[in-house]
């Protein structure tokens, strides 16, 4: 979350709760609502590393709040992140390890493992369908996020089919 917060602070200084709201507004309903505690912990670490600077602002009737500013060093780190190509997803699949090692364990056969996994993926897809149904079609960010998850799941199912053809 460090870099997401730096990106938001590049636009304007903000306090913790404003960052939580900005994340929710930007990513829409499909994004898991960020935990405010986690945001404050992350901001604390960013401050310690010199990537943000906290300024106390006095409030009447309330404790002071901290407003966070991006530092020059923070901007450099952010620029580096944006400019780098992003790693693609890696195949380090827990299920695949189970599948390959299954004959050694004697606990379950490969066919049973694959069948159970397929039902599990389809169940997740059912959830994504329901989520997409609840999402406003003009919420482009949320829609694309869900469609991305669906395409990954499709690839997982296709791979499962290949495993069933060749291993089971």
């Amino acid at each position: 979350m460090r870099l997401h917060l730096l990106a938001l602070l590049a636009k304007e200084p903000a306090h913790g709760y404003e960052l939580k709201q900005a994340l929710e507004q930007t990513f829409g309903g499909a994004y898991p609502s960020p935990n405010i505690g986690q945001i404050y912990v992350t901001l604390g670490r960013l401050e310690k590393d010199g990537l943000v600077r906290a300024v106390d602002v006095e409030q009447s009737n309330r404790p002071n709040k901290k407003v966070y500013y991006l530092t020059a060093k923070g901007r450099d780190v952010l620029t580096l992140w944006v400019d780098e190509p992003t790693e693609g997803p890696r195949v380090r699949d827990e299920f695949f390890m189970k599948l390959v090692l299954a004959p050694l364990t004697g606990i379950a056969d490969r066919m049973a493992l694959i069948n159970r996994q397929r039902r599990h993926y389809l169940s997740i897809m059912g959830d994504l369908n329901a989520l997409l149904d609840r999402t406003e079609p003009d919420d482009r960010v949320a829609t694309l996020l869900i469609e991305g998850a669906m395409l990954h799941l499709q690839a997982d199912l296709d791979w499962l089919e290949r495993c069933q053809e060749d291993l089971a």
Partner: protein
Amino acid sequence: MTNAVLKTVNLVKVYSGGAVPVHAVRGVDLVVEPGEFIAVMGPSGSGKSTLVHMLGGLDARTSGEIWVDGARADTLSESAWALLRRKKIGFVFQFFNLVANMTVADNVELPALLAGASPRIARERREHLLGALNLTDRADASPAQLSGGEQQRVALARALANKPSVLLADEPTGNLDSRNTRDVLRLLGQVHKEGQTIIMVTHDARVAGLADRVVCLLDGEIVDDGRITRRRTGTAGAVIDLR
């Protein structure tokens, strides 16, 4: 199990035309209860299409039994099968088989009229289905004027026109972009909720995710047959993880 919509007993299909006989379906036992939505999955060549074609009487079985609404169907003549399909079975193919010299509206109304619906009922049903599939403004077009995706959706509307006992479909979203797929998914979900029995061959995980049961074929045999449970977590966090 007397109220099964569809049942097969040791259903077998062998294609013996070539040099070597091909055992496409090897002894399938399947019982489909009213209102079930079954996704039939499996690799190419596993017998999925052959199975649903036999269920619709479009391909003759080699041995075994097929029962539709409690009546034996595998022994029917071709014309008797045609009659049974008209009354009880809707079919959507990978290719569309629309009647070329009829409008979209007439293509969709025809099965309902043939099944004995009044012209008013057939028209209302057609208007509802074309509306749900975003095709209302194409009602007066001829199939040749439509894109592949539009023809596919018209074929689905036609298959649902007479509220068949069972909808059989073979890759019905094969030609659709993601927006059109969304319309099709919504309609399938809706008719399923209204009690439509659906048996659908599909590689499309989005479509399969709507089903409540998956039947998986491998080399002509069922290797998995079970329910897809809904977790109903309701939160996105359980499904999507942005790092």
